[in-house]
């Protein structure tokens, strides 16, 4: 990521290209941004995202996550700070870009210690959970594909053949046939649904778990947490090596200055 000191350089894309950059209102932040931005924007984006994550934290404490007041208040906060949250809105490019870049800036700041990482991951997960919960059903499959989770929704026929088994296995379903008819069910390799199958909370057949949408969320969040954790650990290493490099640079400069005074004994 490069930043120029003076003039603001902005990528100018045509409408179609802008949509391709950010096809969804939410993402896993798998690719770092590659454009140039000014230091001022860098700072502003960071501050806005910290405000957002703090709001996520506070709302999570004051309200039960997922309930009505929580959902609408969180939506308000996101909207106020002009971040992306909902699909099918006009002019989504800017909020999504803001979301993308600000996330990566904060990664650098919050990778430095265990506590910071934990806090950052928790708020980012809550944010993702909210955005996923308001994602329209027809967009889910595409989103899953984009984050490399090749989970296929099964057809209605396949669902009805296994109806009694799925209803008997999934605690998240109340047990009514109509509920299952309306709910999508995804077929995923059993090893990808560890938390579900180890407690026998999902139907297994031929090495695949038949997971209702409600439970897919947990799997998606786990994936997100795992990936973010790994990325932050790598970034911490990078930061440490940068720190060492700058320390070395200081020492070498000092060494040069002192050379004339013959203080090699310091080293």
């Amino acid at each position, binding site marked *: 990521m490069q930043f120029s000191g003076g003039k603001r350089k902005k990528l100018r894309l045509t409408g179609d290209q802008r949509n391709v950059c950010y096809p969804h209102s939410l993402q896993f932040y798998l690719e770092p941004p590659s454009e140039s931005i000014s230091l001022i924007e860098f700072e502003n984006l960071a501050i806005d995202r910290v405000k957002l994550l703090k709001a996520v934290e506070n709302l999570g404490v004051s309200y039960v996550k997922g309930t009505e007041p929580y959902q609408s208040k969180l939506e308000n906060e996101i909207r106020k700070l002009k971040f992306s949250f909902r699909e099918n809105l006009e002019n989504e490019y800017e909020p999504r870009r803001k979301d993308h870049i600000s996330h990566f800036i904060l990664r650098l700041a919050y990778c430095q210690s265990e506590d910071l990482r934990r806090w950052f991951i928790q708020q980012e997960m809550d944010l993702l959970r909210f955005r996923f919960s308001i994602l329209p059903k027809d967009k889910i499959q595409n989103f899953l594909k984009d984050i490399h989770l090749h989970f296929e929704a099964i057809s209605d026929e396949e669902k009805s053949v296994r109806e009694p*088994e799925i209803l*008997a296995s999934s605690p998240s379903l109340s047990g009514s046939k109509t509920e299952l008819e309306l709910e999508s069910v995804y077929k995923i390799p059993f*090893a990808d649904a*560890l938390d579900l*199958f180890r*407690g*026998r909370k999902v139907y297994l*057949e031929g090495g*695949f778990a038949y997971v209702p949408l409600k439970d897919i969320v947990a799997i998606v969040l786990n994936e997100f947490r795992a990936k973010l954790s790994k990325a932050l650990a790598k970034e911490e290493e990078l930061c440490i090596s940068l720190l060492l490099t700058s320390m070395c640079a200081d020492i070498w400069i000092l060494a040069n200055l002192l050379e004339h005074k013959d203080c090699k004994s310091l080293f």
Partner: protein
Amino acid sequence: MYSPNYVLGPIKLLETVELLFLLSSEDFGFKHRLWVYSGRRGVHCWVCDESVRKLSSAVRSGIVEYLSLVKGGQDVKKKVHLSEKIHPFVSKSINIIKKYFEEYALVDQDILENKESWDKILALVPETIHENLQQNFQKHHNSLQRWEYLKKAISCQDNTKNDKCGPLLEWEIMLQYCFPRLDINVSKGINHLLKSPFSVHPKTGRISVPIDLQKVDQFDPFTVPTISSICHELDAISINDEGKEGNEAESDIKHRTRDYKKTSLAPYIKVFEQFLENLDKSRKGELLKKSDLQKDF
């Protein structure tokens, strides 16, 4: 539950193999499994599917957890707890156990034989019917009759709402006595030491032989060769061969490596070789598929 000299009985083996075979195929999609008698009380199931061999320790742990229904050590009286919503895994298991329960638990193990044994069962049912059962068990003559009586006694009409009753309670008891127990440490650890097929059991001297699934109902642990019986057989073979000509040039070791196939290990070795052949065929098939996809000719 098991006496110190307990040996894996044919019924228990049959039930265990049938149950685990079904569950590992139907639920997990496992294909290549070798069943090896442990030499005393148990059976080992070697799952050799390539994808399974690569599974992480966490997933292996998860598989054992999924397959565990009987939980708790000696201090825990009631080891099986079922909820109202019965997972297909549980209903499949119960269907198989029902086939074996009478023969294994009521006849073979005689779990309601006398006061000492039926007190253990009473610990699993609500206290309100203990007196009733104690009195009436005396009047019956065998475990079968007592079990029938017990089933009637625990039916829903007689119990208050808080106690579990009826089929659920009946199944919990059956599962506690019949459902196999898996060794979690062996299954989940990737670096855990494993007892190789054809090794010798230190307490019984029996060889851990692969079990032929086609003939599993005829398996009798008492006919499994022991290390000393094999040694005797080998000695007998070499005495016979001494008389033959043309063998002097061969070394002693070479002799013995051909001879094991002449001992009573032969049929078991065949089972093992057949298993390896199938595994190899499958692997070749996979490689062909891959190279076809990549258009390597």
